[in-house]
């Protein structure tokens, strides 16, 4: 059975129909890259997976945890789904290690010493164990994003969602963040990412999903999608990127 199942999901913002019946299955350990123009609904789809957007219709299931239209209690679902944001969204009033520890204590009721140990381990993984007591404001964008990844990983999610996580970074800082993602993919983490980094999507993605006008227009392996696009829209999208 798939780890993540998205079943005819619809989303309306007022009269604006953003998602028009999206179906998608993601297997454990799979890396899925969602591509498409802005306004195609890819970010909305990603944000629906952990309940940041409520569904107008349809169903999302992550590791047996279901999300229906109109549901308001997202806690169980969110324990299974981690998320990394474009703007990092670190907590500026807390140090790096406290950013990672907060939810371990508050949500998982972990003892402080245990939470600290866990935070050290994930920060070590993203190469920031020397910045434990720094404030987010003292870090570069790339470092902040790596802390954000560590913060999500500390909760041991089944799926990690990445919403254009390199879009707000200076070009020279992109590669350090992608290196962390590549490492996670190599370790078998299930990843769903919205990205503009086509070369990266091609390199680490097991599956590429092209969204167009609120629907999944085409999906396949990176080789198929970038090498031999079947639809005119995908070909035009890839062509426009100069890829």
């Amino acid at each position, binding site marked *: 059975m798939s780890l993540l199942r998205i079943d005819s999901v619809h989303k309306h913002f007022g009269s604006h129909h953003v998602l028009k019946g999206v179906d998608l299955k993601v297997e454990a350990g799979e890396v899925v890259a969602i591509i498409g123009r802005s306004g195609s609904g890819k970010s909305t789809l990603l944000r629906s997976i952990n309940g940041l957007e409520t569904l107008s219709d349809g169903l999302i299931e992550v590791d047996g945890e279901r999300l229906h239209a109109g549901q308001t209690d997202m806690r169980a679902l969110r324990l299974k789904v981690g998320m990394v944001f474009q703007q990092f969204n670190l907590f500026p009033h807390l140090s790096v290690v406290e950013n990672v520890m907060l939810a371990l204590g508050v949500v998982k009721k972990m003892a402080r010493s245990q939470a600290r140990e866990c935070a050290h381990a994930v920060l070590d993984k993203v190469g920031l164990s020397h910045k434990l007591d720094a404030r987010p404001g003292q870090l570069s964008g790339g470092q902040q994003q790596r802390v954000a990844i560590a913060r*999500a990983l500390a*909760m041991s999610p089944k799926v990690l969602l990445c919403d254009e996580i390199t879009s707000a970074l200076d070009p020279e800082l992109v590669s350090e963040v992608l290196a962390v993602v590549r490492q996670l993919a190599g370790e078998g983490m299930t990843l769903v990412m919205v990205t503009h980094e086509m070369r990266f999507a091609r390199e680490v993605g097991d599956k590429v999903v092209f969204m167009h006008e609120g629907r999944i227009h085409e999906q396949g392996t990176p080789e198929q999608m970038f090498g031999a696009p079947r639809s005119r829209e995908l070909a035009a999208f890839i062509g426009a990127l100069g890829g």
Partner: protein
Amino acid sequence: MIEFSIWTILQYLAQGLGWTLCLSLLAFVLGGAVGGGILLARIATYPLLRVFARGYIEFFQGTPLLMQLFMVFFGLSLLGRDVSPWVAAGFSLTLYSAAFLAEIWRGCVEAVDRGQWEAAASLAMSRWEQLRHVILPQALRHAVTPTVGFSVQIVKGTAVTSIIGMTELTKTGSILANATLQPFTIFGMVGLGYFLLCYPLSRLAHYLERKLNVLAAH
């Protein structure tokens, strides 16, 4: 006419100042507590609570404090309860401060980036946990200066309670003015008394603003 020595006058005024201070503290502390509750209602997810809080804030911000005081003082008497000026003054100043503090604090909560709520939510925190651990600590930094600034308004606001017979600073002043027939001198001293209370508060507000800005820059 009774002769008052300057010392007697100062003694009475000091007593009035003390009551003004007590009343201000009471309004600030109780108003802060009620205001915190109104704030929570104002940003709640239940629409009914939000509507109630909005109505509350708009009513108390949109009507004069003096009228609110009369409503409480005479309104409660109508119900057959004889209320002491203390109760009426404390009660109406509390309700008044609560409305303004809730509105000030709401602005501070809203100044925190929406991404902070979302990040906390994505870590499976409940709405209360998001507020308690992520939003309020950041809002607090924005809130300190305007809150201290508003305490000056409370101190000056207590003057209206002289109308229902609270012998705070203004009332003491008008009694003394009538007795000594030197209203200008007496009210000059009354004004100085308010200034002595308010000036340190506005200095404190400025100081905290500078200090928090320096902290935020780090």
